[in-house]
């Protein structure tokens, strides 16, 4: 039995390119701003986190629609389709965590510059 539902949304390829673009621009912006002002780097990271979170929600929506479609899993093509979207979701999460890690490590580096002691 073939998949009974056609997923209406961005194709996996388009979603991959959009994610990669947002992630790379976000990472470069946050890394660059960390050398200027950590506060602005944090705000920028927050902005890109929000965009990536929206992309993640969108991708997860597609994944759930696909997996709950009647007849899903009856062909290998369905499964490959599902795995592709899950890989994209993993990539989005990876980018989100990377931005958060940059900010956190940036905060540590700033504390190092400020010297030993409490805030």
């Amino acid at each position, binding site marked *: 039995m073939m998949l009974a539902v056609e997923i209406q949304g961005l194709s996996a390829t388009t979603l991959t390119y959009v994610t990669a673009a947002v992630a790379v621009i976000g990472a470069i912006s946050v890394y660059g701003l960390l050398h200027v002002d950590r506060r602005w780097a944090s705000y920028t990271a927050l902005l890109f986190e929000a965009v990536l979170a929206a992309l993640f929600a969108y991708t997860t929506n597609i994944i*759930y629609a696909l997996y709950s479609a009647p007849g899903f899993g009856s062909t290998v093509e369905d499964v490959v389709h*599902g*795995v592709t979207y899950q890989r994209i979701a993993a990539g989005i999460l990876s980018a989100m965590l990377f931005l958060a890690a940059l900010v956190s490590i940036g905060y540590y580096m700033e*504390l190092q510059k400020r010297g030993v002691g409490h805030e």
Partner: protein
Amino acid sequence: MKALIRLWELILERFHLKEFLEHPVPRFSSLNPLYWFGDVAAMSFFILAITGFALALLYTPGLSLTKTPPDPLLGHNAKEVYDATESYSSVYKITYLTPLGFILRQIHLWSAYMMIFATLAHFFAKFILGSYKRRGGGALWLLGVLLGVLTIGQAVLGYILPLHLDGILAIQIGLNLFRYFDYFGIPVGQLVLSVLGSLFVTDQVIKMIYVLHILIVPAIILVLLGLKINGILYGGVAPPPIKDEELRRKAMEEKEPFYPHRFALMVGQLLLQLSVILLLTAMTPLPLLEPWVPGQEVPPGVRPPWPVMWYYTYVKMIDPFISVGLPIFLVLFAMVVPLLDRKGGISIEERWVWVIIAIVYIAIIGYGTVLGFLVDIPKELTPLTRISVPPDYAVPYTGTPQAVGP
């Protein structure tokens, strides 16, 4: 925001967390990469525990056969359908038929690989630093060696659970390691087989491996890890490998509070670690591999994953009398290192002999791993076949399966 900050401060005060969070940590250990890998291994363990909990809810151990479609990541013909065990079938369902199940399993697998890599790197780093030379360091070293053995053991147990062909190869190699003791008259292999109650994988055996993997071994790891963290918390980290005593003392005295300094770094490290794991999931997902059917022999092309590849290579290359017991010798040697390396200072130039030994130690593992991937050694895997005492009870998983006992 102010209310939240007040609440946070109240929590810190009332739960006496301030004393813990503000304990001073040496600054050099945050900046020197040789001190990072222990944290990575510990964090990986907690990631594995969380993902493992979710996987345990979905996994069903069992040998009853079901029809399963092929692994799409291996690029098989879509029309093929395989006979596979219930274990394999349930992992197939988690990986390919559950929304976000693929990500869950990939995080578990990549975290396991990261934990093993970090454990090896941590061992090597502490060997170079001679961290066992400080007071209490020997006990921490011993705990570390035990944790390393349990980590590899836990990985092998987890690798068996889906009951793919590679998992069956893992159980064969693992049991042959126990049989090595039997050769010397210590019936360890016999004991293990009598506990398993069978010469071949049964429902009971797979259930036992499952319980070991999700409950017993993690519980032991958690207790040992707790002891180790406690030892580091109260005994401090290994001193930096500096020859000048004055400089070393100065580095040891330069401290910063755990919170927010080291805490920010640890959070960053955890996030970065998860980010790398998810990136690996997206870029290089690991396939489920070929299913195994009870009674089926492992075909020659099947090879183990990288953490045990070195062992597989040596078992095929060298006389089994030496190679099969190699991990046992490596572990025993690691355990006695603090007793042998007692004299002299802790700097690298004072301990160059031990640094070379550490490099040789890791090179043995590294060489076998690289060689295993580069060359397919043209010899069938027959551990212990050249040893003259292969007792009947110590021939697991070969020939016709026979039940043990009534």
